[in-house]
């Protein structure tokens, strides 16, 4: 069952890293109505640069079927230089370079395919910058 509507509405965040900076400093990707930190509703729209640091990571050996052709692959929690947190798959990098503290840069990649006839899903992945 194609979820093209669900996919389409996330495009600004996944394709262009459009995020919000609330007046309390919290950065949200995707958008929220209210900051989880202080409850402020004041924010400005920002675009993340795509540069960040790995806070933690794992190598996934047993993925769900959607990602089975990619296994094993690394996934990381990344803090961007603006201070936003996000989770991303790591691509085009050696496992030995995937470490806590490693610098990464987000790139535009295909995330998954909805079977042989469904839509193609794109978004960000991270590459370790050496």
């Amino acid at each position: 069952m194609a979820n093209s509507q669900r996919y389409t509405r996330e495009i600004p965040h996944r394709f262009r890293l459009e995020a919000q900076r609330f007046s309390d400093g919290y950065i949200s990707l995707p958008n929220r109505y209210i900051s989880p930190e202080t409850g402020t509703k004041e924010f400005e729209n920002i675009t993340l640069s795509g540069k960040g640091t790995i806070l933690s990571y794992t190598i996934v050996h047993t993925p769900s079927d959607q990602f089975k052709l990619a296994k094993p692959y690394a996934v990381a929690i990344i803090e961007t230089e603006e201070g936003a947190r996000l989770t991303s798959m790591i691509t085009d990098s050696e496992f030995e370079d995937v470490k806590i503290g490693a610098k990464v840069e987000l790139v535009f990649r295909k995330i998954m395919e909805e079977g042989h006839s469904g839509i193609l899903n794109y978004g960000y992945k991270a590459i370790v910058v050496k």
Partner: protein
Amino acid sequence: MRDVAIVGVGLTKFGELWNQGIRDMFAEAALAAMADAGVDKIDSMYVGAMSSGLYSYQEHTASVMADYIGQRGVASARVEAACSSGSQAARTGFFEVASGAADVVLVGGVEKMWDVDDGTFVLATASDQEYEAYAGVTFPGLYAMMAQVYMQKYGLTREELAQVPIKNHRHAVHNPYAQYPFELDMKTYLTAAPVADPFRLMDCSPITDGAAAIIMVPLDQAHKYTDKPVKIKGIGSATGPIALHDHKDLTRLDAVRLSAEKAYKMAGVGPDDIQFAEVHDCFSIAEIIVAEELGFFPYGTAGKAIAAGQATYGGKLVINPSGGLKAKGHPVGATGVAQLIEATLQLQGKAGKRQVENAKIGLTQNMGGSGGTSVVHILEAV
């Protein structure tokens, strides 16, 4: 509010139950709980199920279950909070009895996990679907990322981490309902199939079919049903960030601390008053972090304390006498209720060879997702 007691329990064997669907398992556990309490009619019921839709293509689970346990006509609702669905259902049932709206409430939990091929996908729906699961992260992967930071920050070794599942498997040996009632040795642990670094298979709770059910009544009526009622002394439930990446400190689970604070306050007890705890060891690291958030051990020390025998018989307290999620099994929607059953049996002195001596007050802690929900119950023998 009225005091509430558990007066009946029922459980299926946990495992790969080829011949039972969700309604069969639920009915087996619910009817056993009703028989244990000596009731054939209930006022109301709650069903904890994380994903009967994706696992069994069955929603409207609450009505199905009422029909199949011979209780057409009663009020029935499903409660969902991922892996904490069962204890969240129990909390809901508790307040219905406490409020005086009903006298006999059945709370059950069920999950039929072995009917689908891609259970990893189903479990990942308990994370942030669009911003975690979309990135390819799995549930073991989320807890593995907590473990990576914890191990680096506190110098916890794989061999120390191993002591969580090794202990829980040792406890499960004496649990007739457990899925894997056998001992786990270090070599098997260290060489098991990799799942999500640093986790291998033996860091992870299994895929399990099973159901559990309890009967709750007002405490002042409890002796009509049993000689050994168990009082629900405290309840606490709290939420945390849905996405693991939004946890400021990846070695903490704020929802667990907050839910424990609420439950301790309501019960008027503290961590030192607890003789045993059933906690959510979905992955090895989870038991360590949870034990710290519950106040049993200072931050950064639970791993080494568990490895030193402080969480088993003869230690500070017994954690997961049932074998925990790891060895008893983890049919997600049933787990919270099954934890309450273990606590009830311990406080009734009915836990057989795994009986914790002089058990007066026990605690259960049930987690949803990677800390998006935590539910704590404190139970007391009366």
